[in-house]
């Protein structure tokens, strides 16, 4: 079958960062180097050492949207209960995550919906209540708000409300691309994870990489009987590529991962900012000899892995939380409060938050509003020197 040339995904064909060109003299705020970052599996060899990954599996180098596509294909072939739908899903989706899936699995299971986020979410909840495993796509996290009622009042409360009838919407996954890309301004940049994380009853997941995404998405669909909000950092769709196991595997939800062990300070983050954290860590470990920083990826934002984080900070005594969305009432506030309650006597410095400022992401100001390597570097330095 001859397929039309794959279109460039929305927001992603633009080669340069218009409104946030790096300063020519920059040493910290450099464009992220996804080819060398230690956060990605640049060869298949490193995959086998990862817990949860299938031993001896074949693998292929995929970027994030291809890994999501691979996970969805795996899910659709694993169970005919899996459905995939949303706006523009049929032709492959504006970010190409559903490419070829309608032709492979048919338009009964993979289909376009009318343009209605509340409709998509409600439809998915209904299908899940009847035992299907709907994977609903909202085109941008910024456009999820009409679906918020369905998510907060319905999906999150379904099992609790039903009680003895036992009806629930486990198997429901609502996917949405989130986060900054450099030119998304007010409505193609948002990361509303803390809004969801305030709601008991939904699991909130954000993967950092292609291999993580596939395992976490399959886990969300098959391994948990709770509705999952699955947030995909759209800045990584094309930028982040790594070796991803070809077959079915899962990564447990609500389990954080220590992606880099260290002894002097713990950075807690998730999603796209992890790459900036990693760059800041290598910079600080170069300039401050002997310093060793631990980096934790929360992976699931709620219900979150408090023990892994507490254990790490009890060891290091210092913590910095980094996320893209606004600092006010954000994930950092919850993590900092938990550390204060659970590791107070071990803390050597106040828990620092590096996050978006308490404003909207105005187009020309994005680089000043969102956390960059410099701000993370500075926060590490200040916390170490406190």
């Amino acid at each position, binding site marked *: 079958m001859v397929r*039309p*040339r*794959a*279109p*460039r995904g*929305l*927001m*992603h*064909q*633009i*080669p*340069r960062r*218009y*409104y946030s*060109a*790096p*300063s*020519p*003299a*920059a*040493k*910290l*705020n450099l464009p992220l180097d996804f080819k060398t970052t230690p956060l990605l599996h640049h060869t298949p060899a490193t995959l086998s050492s990862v817990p949860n990954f299938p031993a001896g599996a074949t693998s292929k180098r995929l970027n994030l949207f291809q890994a999501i596509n691979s996970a969805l294909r795996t899910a659709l072939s694993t169970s005919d209960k899996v459905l995939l739908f949303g*706006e*523009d899903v*049929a*032709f*492959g989706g*504006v970010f190409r995550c559903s490419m070829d899936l309608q032709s492979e699995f048919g338009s009964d299971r993979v289909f*376009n919906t*009318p*343009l*209605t*986020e*509340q*409709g998509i979410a409600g439809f998915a909840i209904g299908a899940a209540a009847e035992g299907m495993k709907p994977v609903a796509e909202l085109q941008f996290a*910024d*456009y999820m*708000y*009409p679906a918020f009622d369905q998510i907060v009042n319905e999906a999150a409360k379904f099992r609790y409300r039903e009680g003895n009838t036992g009806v629930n919407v486990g198997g429901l996954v609502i996917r949405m691309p989130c986060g900054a890309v450099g*030119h998304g*301004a*007010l*409505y*193609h940049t948002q990361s509303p994870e803390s809004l969801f994380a305030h709601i008991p009853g939904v699991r909130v997941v954000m993967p950092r990489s292609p291999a993580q995404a596939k395992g976490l998405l399959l886990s969300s669909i098959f391994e948990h009987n709770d509705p999952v909000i699955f947030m995909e950092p759209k800045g990584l769709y094309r930028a982040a590529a790594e070796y991803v196991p070809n077959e079915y595997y899962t990564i447990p939800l609500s389990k954080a991962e220590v992606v880099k062990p260290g002894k002097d300070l713990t950075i807690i983050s998730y999603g796209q900012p992890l790459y900036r954290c990693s760059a800041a860590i290598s910079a600080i470990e170069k300039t401050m000899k002997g310093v060793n920083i631990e980096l934790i990826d929360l992976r699931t934002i709620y219900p979150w892995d408090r023990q892994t984080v507490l254990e790490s900070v009890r060891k290091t005594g210092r913590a910095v939380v980094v996320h893209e969305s606004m*600092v006010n009432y954000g994930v950092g506030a919850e993590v900092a409060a938990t550390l204060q309650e659970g590791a107070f006597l071990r803390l050597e410095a106040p828990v620092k938050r590096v996050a978006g*400022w*308490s*404003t*909207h992401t*105005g*187009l*020309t*100001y994005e*680089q*000043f*509003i969102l956390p960059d390597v*410099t*701000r993370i570097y*500075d926060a590490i330095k200040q916390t170490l020197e406190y």
Partner: protein
Amino acid sequence: MLLRRPLLAARMPRSFVPVLASPTPMGKHRLTKAWVVFPGAVNSEFTSDMSFVTAKDLPAIPTYRVMNSDGEMVDKTRGHPNVSDEEVLTWYKNMLQVSIMDTIMFDAHRQGRVSFYMVSQGEEGISIGSAAALTPDDVAFSQYREAGVYQQRGFTLKDFMSQLFANCNDNGKGRNMPVHYGQKYPRIITVSSPLATQIPQASGAAYALKLKDLQNPNQAPRVVACYLGEGAASEGDFHAGLNIAATRSCPVIFVVRNNGYAISTPTIEQYRGDGIASRGVGYGMDTIRVDGNDVFAMYEAMTEARRRALSDGCQPVLIEAMSYRVSHHSTSDDSFAYRARVEVEDWKRRDNPIIRLRKWLENKGIWNEDMEKETRDSMRQAVLKEFKEAERLKKPPIREAFTDVYEEITEEAQEQMKELKRIIETYPDEYDLQPYKDGLKGLE
């Protein structure tokens, strides 16, 4: 409750027994008519024929046109549209200007000079024909493919370019993605990317205008024009906005651009009824479907819609303007991934609002090839001049990242601005403030 139609509720006996259950079948026709007086449907007649209304059996709502694709009156017996040649020439030039700007900006995106752009190719007649029927005091809410509304309502090339380049002259203070224009007067509320959110807002604004104009007899009554696409009509806000406008008798005109596609989704996957017009009827509002390639039909329909919107204590009106999205959705989209190139080429050949009006003008002898060429050249030059000027100008000062969230910058945000300043001062090599007005001082 039910009763014979002539009876009024006031005359109903106290212990009311349905006068008419009268289910005496008399062949196909019931001689005894009875009307429903359930509060939810007072003009419905009872029937014992069980007949479902089947949408596809109803005739499709016709499409109003004045001028055919050869630029001639469809109905030669009626008079020409009530508009001066001079005015029509203005419309034509406005349509041309938008289309020339579109071509230049689409290419500018390819050259990497703007991050994003959306053209309104093929839909210039809808925007300009409808906006031409508004008064400057009327208020408009647009979606994102209505540059023509801005052009017709006095938005200058400098205004367009300042927004597109997010420079210090941009009304939106460099905060919004390109094509998210906004204008104070004639008022056009700044474009917001989320779909359909403007619809209930337009109803509320219209209600406010209605009340304010009642309170101030010196103010000529005003309407709100609300633009949206057929895709946005699937959002919940569409229902909310139309229904509330109907129940509160708001002087709002919903102009629905039905261009056949919502990004990749064709109308067949968007709805199964008779377009969007059928829904206007469902909400109890006066509704018309118009050929969007016919600027006169748009102008006449909008003029009449405006009159109706302000008649009888005000009411909402819906116009469904039919067109075809000959362009890609945006610069981020390649529509040949989901539709055949030949389909688009066919449409381009078949009809176009600009070519149609040009034929009209040429038929009237007030336009010719030389004028066309000269006008196009000078418009192109004008766009490029403003383009270069706007591109060169500084971005607004960095403090604008924090202003206008609240009326006053909060204490918390002030501290964040100080912290940002400290960071920039501590790591001066990491930030390039040169593009921003007043550099680091712009943060104070």
